């Protein structure tokens, strides 16, 4: 099959970008989307043109490195699928596809389809953990966890940190990402002591990084390759509300007390 690609090319963070048209020829339906780009890039290099820069690593849909917009949809048309797991049989001969990087103030473009998502790491630094010093743990079975809680915690923990939720959100909010971590840890007994502080500090970090606010558009859930549910945002808001009554937990946070809870779905 043959496709026409319009790809965002931007040499560096400070350079101006533009859409450039390329033809992808003789594409096998068995190729993954990234393998199709590999083929385009090999041809570009042969012609002496700079290849399209895109981030990727495991190509198994688990590392979270890859992701860009395909015709305005984060990770493209297939539900619950990262671009590395998207295969060309999902497209038709003659399709015109526009590829753009994640667009968000908190995710500045580095080059072409690659953006800087280090803001996610800083949100985690603010509280996305359980403080358990190496060596200090009790026997693993000393902590009982209800199976339902463990399963739900896992659902939240499945987040791969790709940033599609931010890219899809009309406000470029990071609520689904943050809520997934707050829910994962808050659902487990080990996570209780820091639960309020975690919610407050992570949300404060989110604001510092200039992510937008959540208005329940629900676009994040629709594109999440790991199907993280919107209900986790409600859980985050509950924790945040609880934290505002209980106080405390301001460690490392800038000024968490001026936060009002976000809208709940």
């Amino acid at each position, binding site marked *: 099959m043959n496709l026409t690609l319009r790809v965002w090319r931007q040499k*560096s963070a400070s350079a101006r970008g533009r859409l450039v048209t390329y033809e992808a020829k003789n594409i096998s339906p068995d190729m993954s989307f990234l393998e199709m780009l590999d083929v385009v890039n090999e041809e570009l290099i042969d012609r002496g043109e700079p290849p399209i820069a895109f981030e990727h690593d495991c190509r*198994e849909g688990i590392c979270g490195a890859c992701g860009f917009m395909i015709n305005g949809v984060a990770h493209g048309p297939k539900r619950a699928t990262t671009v590395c797991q998207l295969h060309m*049989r999902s497209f038709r001969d003659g399709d015109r596809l526009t590829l753009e990087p994640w667009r968000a103030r908190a995710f500045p473009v580095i080059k072409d389809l690659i953006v800087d998502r280090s803001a996610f790491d800083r949100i985690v630094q603010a509280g996305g*953990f359980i403080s358990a010093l190496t*060596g200090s743990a009790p026997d693993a079975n000393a902590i009982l966890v209800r199976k339902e809680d*463990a399963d739900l915690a896992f659902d939240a923990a499945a987040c791969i940190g790709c940033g599609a939720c931010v890219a899809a959100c009309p406000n470029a909010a990071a609520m689904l990402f943050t809520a997934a971590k707050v829910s994962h840890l808050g659902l487990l007994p080990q996570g209780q002591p820091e639960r309020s502080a975690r919610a407050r500090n992570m949300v404060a970090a989110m604001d510092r990084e200039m992510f937008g606010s959540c208005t329940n558009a629900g676009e994040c859930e629709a594109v999440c390759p790991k199907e993280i549910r919107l209900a986790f945002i409600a859980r985050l808001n509950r924790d945040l509300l609880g934290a505002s009554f209980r106080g405390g937990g301001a460690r490392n946070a800038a000024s968490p007390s001026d936060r009002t809870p976000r809208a709940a779905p």
Partner: protein
Amino acid sequence: MTVGATSASLVDGRLDAKLPPGPIEQKWERHCFDMKLVSPANRRRYTVLVVGSGLAGAAAAASLGELGYKVECFSYHDSPRRAHSIAAQGGINAAKNYRNDGDSVFRLFYDTVKGGDFRAREANVYRLAELSLNIIDQCVAQGVPFAREYGGLLDTRSFGGAQVSRTFYARGQTGQQLLLGAYQALERQVGLGTVTMHTRAEMLDLVVVDGRARGIVTRNLVTGAVESHVGDAVVLATGGYGNVFYLSTNAKASNATAIWRAHKRGAFFGNPCFTQIHPTCIPVSGEHQSKLTLMSESLRNDGRVWVPTKVGDTRPPDRIPIGERDYYLERKYPSFGNLSPRDIASRAAKEVCDEKRGVGPGGRGVYLDFADAIARLGEPAIREKYGNLFDMYERITGENAYRVPMRIYPAVHYTMGGLWVDYNLMSTIAGLFVAGEANFSDHGANRLGASALMQGLADGYFILPCTLADYLARMRPDTLDAGHPAFRAAEVEVAERVRRLLAINGTRTVDSFHRELGHLMWDYCGMARNEAGLRHALRKIPELRAEFWANVRVLERNEELNQSLEKAGRVADFLELGELMCIDALHRTESCGSHFREERQTPDGEALRDDEHFAHVAAWEYTDRLAEPNLHREPLHFEYVHLSQRSYR
């Protein structure tokens, strides 16, 4: 009294693994007591550089940061959470004996030594089995959402043919959850200021001053800046080198550059030819294939492996009557059948494909058929057990495995070889520690399922914090800085190499060289090797390397994000490492663990070990002449698990 970590591991040309004295079950504990400590007030005066942020690297960086050392951690990814540990599916072993099924530290130790086909150090493996208990405790405390029973206790499963149920798991994403646990502990330390994280920074050289590893040179992958970093010790936790085969289950960026640079600076390379081939991967679909995807081995619990009996039978599988199918694993290994160990299942698949009985495009595939299991248990039961794997298979191949048999083929999955380290995880360069898959490790000639995660975390959480302290306690912090001539020289070398790569401007892409190297390695240094093939590869690889340096095309500049340039540097190192792997494979004229040397087999075609000549670790020393490395042998002694030939018939 134990030998200190600082003393050279090479004494009069003989490798000293520095195994502590005493009975095996007391070695580690006694060693911990014998090792020196750094007082809490002094720890911040020492800087430790940790390269890599996967399970071993993130665990080490977080734990050392918690202890109060100044830690600098490096990753070429945009975030430490991307490391390829994240892709491990199956689980992590721990000798908890929660199932009351007769498991014990000794049994896990025994299974691992035997599984490694007697090519691992007993003392290391015993320690690994001991620490498996602490690892699970630690991970649960961090909030890793392991599978649970209804009573709230941890669930376990039997994995990879083990007779006890000792594998803890988090659905099919155990590696992801363990890595996120370590990543979160690491980010906590970053937030607290004990660890400085350098992302998008690739280590391109090791700096050795007065015989000690004192720093690294990195390239900033966004700006191209070449930078020096000084430390009192260096930890390499940079993963395996399976991508030397081009196609493997490794992530695209996984590479050998850090360990290869260290090797060229004096670190010996242990057992480079020991590669694990995983039997259940999705076959190659065409020349465009960029990587291979593993399907969990658990599928072999219910799937039956077969190929047509007739050569060149191209009928669709449902048109081939039972009588014309060869269920070759059940036929050849009746007692283990479809659950035969990884190496045996892999080799058997290669054999039937070599006989032109393979299925699917290119004829490199065998059927993994669930029809009988579906008939027996019903489709819902199969869906319940393996639904996510069937979905993944359909996403990649477009085929519904409930209707047609899956097609699988072996693929490179893990490298047991790596930099040689002593019991303290220190390489032959003082102050250079190597952890996780990057070291030659505790898996011998073949790794058991669910052991890689265990080893990475044991190294990072529990072993390095002790052995590094012992090393640092013997060193006085000094004022060495990056102005030292050794750093300047390494920076110049790195910059010059980058300049050379960009200046060639030839006609072939980096990937085309990488693919060609991969074919050579897979054909001649893969599952089965022989002398003629290895000699052929040893002629071809230097030719390919010469062509690479004369004809590779790397566009754009150094001073920007340049993915072709990154790849070119890695492939240049693979082109050297591949040669060493073939040299090692040629030297080892025995069939052992995951590799089969065709000249050494029993009359019925089974692998034949040669304990008399090869019960040793082959540790190779770089000599400036790639074709002539020096071989050092570390003999292996088996006092607790008696040498015996494996039999799965």
